[in-house]
C-alpha cells in the first residue's frame, strides 16, 4: 500500500507485434488527503527505462506519466515504480512508494498470400478472369494460398461468386484439415456450378489463418469470367428455291 503515490493503473495493450510501438501510460494518484507531493515515476521494460519523470501531484489528484517502447521478439513485462523525496524541502533521497506491473504478449502477425485464382473450364485450370465462356458451361473455382509465416499454419478460404445480376451462384468456406508448412501452398477447390447468364461474373475471396480467432491474411475482389451467348451447332432451316427467272 502506497504512502502517497499510488500507482492506480498501467495503460498498455495486452499484445503487440514485434517491432511495433507500444504506448504506455501510468496513472499515479496522490492519496495524501492534505498535502501536495513531488512524485517520481520510473517505468522499465527489459531493463530499458522509458519513463522517468518527476511531477508535483496535488492532494487527491492523479497524474499521467507517458512513454513508449518498441516491442521485442517475445512477451515482455512493464514494471512501474513511484517515489517520493525525503526530506521534502531539500530532497536527498527518493523513497520507493509503490510498484505495479503489466504483461504485454507478443502478437503473432499472420502472413499469407493468394497465389493462384483459377477456373476449371473445358477440363483445364485457367487463371481468372476468363473470357468468352458460352452460357451453360459448368465450372469450378480453385484458390491457392501460400503460408508466408516461419511456422506451420492452418489456412482457410472463403469465396463467393455472383452472377451478372448479383445473385450468389457459388460460395465456399473451409479450413484445411491439417497444416501448411512455411512457404508452402494449399489448394482449395469448390463445387461445380453453371454459368447460365450472359455478362460478367465476379468473385470475392478471403484467405484465413488462425482458426481460433480467424485473421484475413489476403483477399481479392474482381472479375471471375465473362460469359457470352452460346452458339449452337450448325443448323439450317427452310432451305428451298425461292424463285427462278430468265436473266
Amino acid at each position, binding site marked *: 500500500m502506497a504512502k502517497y503515490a499510488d500507482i492506480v493503473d498501467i495503460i498498455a495493450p495486452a499484445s503487440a507485434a514485434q517491432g511495433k510501438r507500444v504506448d504506455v501510460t501510468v496513472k499515479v494518484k496522490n492519496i495524501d488527503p492534505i498535502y501536495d507531493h513531488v512524485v517520481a515515476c520510473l517505468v522499465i521494460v527489459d531493463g530499458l527505462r522509458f519513463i522517468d519523470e518527476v511531477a508535483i501531484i496535488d492532494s487527491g489528484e492523479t497524474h499521467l506519466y507517458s512513454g513508449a517502447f518498441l516491442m521485442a521478439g517475445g512477451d515482455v513485462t512493464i514494471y512501474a515504480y513511484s517515489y517520493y523525496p525525503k526530506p521534502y524541502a531539500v530532497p536527498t533521497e527518493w523513497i520507493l512508494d509503490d510498484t505495479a506491473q503489466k504483461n504485454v504478449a507478443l502478437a503473432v502477425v499472420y502472413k499469407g498470400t493468394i497465389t493462384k485464382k483459377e477456373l476449371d473450364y473445358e477440363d483445364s485450370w485457367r487463371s481468372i478472369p476468363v473470357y468468352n465462356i458460352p452460357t451453360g458451361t459448368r465450372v469450378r473455382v480453385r484458390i491457392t494460398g501460400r503460408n508466408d509465416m516461419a511456422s506451420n499454419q492452418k489456412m482457410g478460404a472463403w469465396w463467393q461468386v455472383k452472377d451478372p445480376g448479383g445473385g450468389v451462384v457459388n460460395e465456399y468456406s473451409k479450413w484445411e484439415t491439417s497444416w501448411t508448412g512455411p512457404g508452402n501452398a494449399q489448394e482449395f477447390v469448390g463445387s461445380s456450378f453453371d454459368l447460365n447468364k450472359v455478362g460478367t461474373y465476379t468473385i470475392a475471396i478471403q484467405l484465413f489463418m488462425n482458426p481460433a480467432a480467424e485473421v484475413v491474411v489476403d483477399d481479392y475482389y474482381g472479375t471471375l469470367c465473362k460469359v457470352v451467348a452460346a452458339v449452337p451447332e*450448325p443448323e439450317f*432451316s*427452310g432451305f*428451298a*428455291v425461292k424463285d427462278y427467272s430468265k436473266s
Partner: protein
Amino acid sequence: MYRNQYQTLEQLLGGVEVAPSGKLTVMRGDTVRVTVGFSYRGTALSFGLRVAIGNKGVTFDEIAYATKPTISVPASAGFLAYTAYVDISTAAIAPQADLDLYAKLTGLPGADLLTPYYLNVIDVLGAPEFQNFAITDYSKV
C-alpha cells in the same frame, strides 16, 4: 388460260420471277437465275451451293447446273435468313418441256442439304429457226 399465255410471254422477254411450282419457259441458250433461301444458326460456316436442271427419275439426271463455290455465314445464336443465287446456262439443254429443278448446299460438316425436287417447272424451247426458205412463185399483180 389467257393469263398463263401472257405470263409465258413475259417470261420469254425475261425478268419475271417464277415461284415454285410455277413454270418458266425459256429459249435454249437463255440463262436461268435460280434464287434459294435458307435460315441458319450456329458457328461461322462456309459452304457451297449447287443448282441443277434436269430430269428426276430414280435419281436426278442433271442436264445443266451452276455452282457458287463459297457462301460464308457468320456465327449466330439465332436463325438468320439468307438468300443466294446462281445463273444456269441452258445452252446445253436440248429443247424439251417439263424439266425439273433442285438445289443443294455442299461442303457442310455433315451430308449435303437438298431442297425438295421441283418437277415440271422449266420448258426449254428451241432457238429461232427457219426452214425451206425459198421463192415459191412469182407473177404479175
